[in-house]
């Protein structure tokens, strides 16, 4: 039993190595000079000596291989360095940002899991009927919504026009809210981003659940359950739903990874101070270390999500257990 879920470990390791290497190489392959960011806006007004000094200070003059090795060392010791742009320790920047991204992604994932599973289950149960078909069509349509556009519309309507929710940020700036008031404030800010992410996640959960349910509904053991005299309800909850849930969990892990990455867009639209915005800012600002670190955190988060799914799967489906 100890091997549960770790069968993919080598695969994740490979992903990690690729991500770290990519991470290191891509920014360096990009055209442009990182100096502008290190020295601030007025780099052009510095003397060549001053510039050289800065380049040496951040190690950009080292051979690429040395930089690469140093990079690995740093990654493995969680020393993510300092931002070129702000000079702040990146670990600190990331620990600041990560909770916000987790809040909206995990929040939306939970909401969409509940809604998606319920709707998908219901839809499958009534397969071929009107409810099923209209729900199905609706979900395909939702899937086709551009995320940022949805966010923009939500801001236009609910923040600007109606003023129900704040339009930006994770908290009321400089508020001195404490305790529940602060929680309320945070939730209020998180609602629109969570709604956007949720709307985008529901169709996938719904589809997975529905298909998984249909698969289970068509299987022989459902007939066995009925032959035992189990009521439809019991069949639905005791057998169908229980068996259908395993693929949904896997999907949720993938969806989490996707939503986590998708936070780049949502956080930009909502000016939400999460990791997604950090990576976007870093990319457009060529803040190598920050971009690398953020991408790394994304990768690790995705790997962790997959690992969790791998660990959960055998719990939900005993066939996956390895003795």
């Amino acid at each position: 039993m100890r091997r549960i879920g770790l069968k993919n470990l080598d695969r994740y390791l490979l992903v990690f190595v690729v991500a770290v290497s990519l991470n290191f190489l891509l920014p360096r392959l990009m055209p442009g000079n990182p100096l502008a960011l290190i020295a601030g806006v007025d780099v052009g007004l510095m003397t060549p000596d001053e510039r050289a000094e800065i380049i040496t200070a951040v190690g950009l003059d080292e051979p690429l291989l040395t930089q690469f090795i140093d990079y690995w060392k740093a990654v493995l010791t969680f020393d993510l360095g300092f931002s070129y742009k702000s000079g702040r320790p990146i670990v600190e920047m990331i620990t600041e940002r990560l909770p916000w991204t987790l809040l909206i992604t995990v929040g939306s994932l939970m909401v969409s899991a509940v809604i998606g599973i319920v709707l998908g289950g219901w839809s499958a149960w009534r397969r071929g009927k009107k409810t099923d078909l209209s729900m199905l069509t609706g979900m395909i349509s939702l899937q086709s919504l551009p995320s940022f556009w949805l966010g923009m519309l939500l801001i236009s309507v609910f923040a600007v026009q109606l003023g129900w929710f704040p339009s930006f940020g994770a908290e009321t700036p400089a508020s001195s809210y404490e305790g529940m008031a602060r929680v309320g404030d945070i939730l209020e800010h998180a609602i629109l981003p969570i709604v956007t992410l949720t709307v985008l996640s529901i169709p996938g959960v719904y589809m997975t659940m529905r298909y998984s349910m249909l698969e289970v509904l068509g299987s022989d053991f459902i007939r066995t359950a009925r032959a035992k005299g189990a009521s439809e309800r019991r069949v639905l909850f005791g057998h169908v739903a229980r068996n259908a849930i395993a693929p949904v969990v896997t999907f949720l892990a993938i969806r989490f990874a996707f939503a986590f990455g998708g936070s780049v867009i949502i956080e930009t639209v909502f000016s939400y101070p999460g990791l997604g915005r950090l990576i976007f800012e870093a990319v457009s600002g060529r803040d190598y270390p920050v971009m690398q670190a953020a991408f790394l955190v994304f990768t690790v988060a995705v790997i962790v999500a997959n690992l969790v799914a791998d660990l959960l799967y055998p719990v939900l489906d005993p066939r996956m257990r390895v003795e």
Partner: protein
Amino acid sequence: MKLFTRRPGRRPTPKVAKRLGIVGGVMISALVLMAVFAPLLAPYDPTERVGAPFQPPSAEHWLGTNDVGQDLLSELIYGARVSLTVGIVAAIVALILGTTVGVLAGYYPKRLGKVLMQSVDVILILPFLPLLIVLAAYLGRSLLNTIVVIGVLIWAGPSRVIRSQVLSLRSREYVLASRTMGAPDRWAIVRHVLPRTALLATGTFVRAVSTAILLEAALSFLGLGDPLQKSWGSILFWAQSRGAFLTPAWKWWVLPPGLMIMIASLGFALVAFAMEERINPRL
């Protein structure tokens, strides 16, 4: 001993799926026609400044004008060209990559397949959007790069689906039979595997178009596409960068291109859905 199970024959596509597919097809055709006949349909040249900037809708400009006085309706109509092209071409890139890898990995599951699938896994697990952004930023802004980046990142999913199909086809007895006749792998792949995978591949291709259209829009919106190409995404980029969605202009500047993206993506998604239902009816 294997049990003989009777198959009721391939279940024909359920009516509803078919109908949804037709709706999707109509949507796509309308958009394609719009793209093809854009010069006839559009009231103005979308690159020309034909009015004052930031005009609300009027008789001359049904959707008003953008920040430099270009006609938004014309931009919208011409936008179909870029958005559809990017979607379709990126999907073709993905299709070629995905099918090649999927077929090879499925037909040679041992060493080659393992290596290929490992790379697929890596691509699938890597955080998609951040990677897309990093890549797009690296390659710079041009239509071609957008296409390549999207195509190169979305093939992995389909290739997996195709691989599992090929994997099962490969051990179908008619493929084995052709091998016992002394047919080379090429024969089995070309005569038996590819034709049987075509429908599935087409289905995933159509879905990929839907995905690619959304991705193009997202990239353009983030300013990582070419903002000077008139695509729906770039219209939204301009709307965003000139603050239109905070003003009443969102109704004619933000709403229509978003709807177009949705319609295009939806059209392809519906067709893909209908095709998938045909392959594996679950309605």
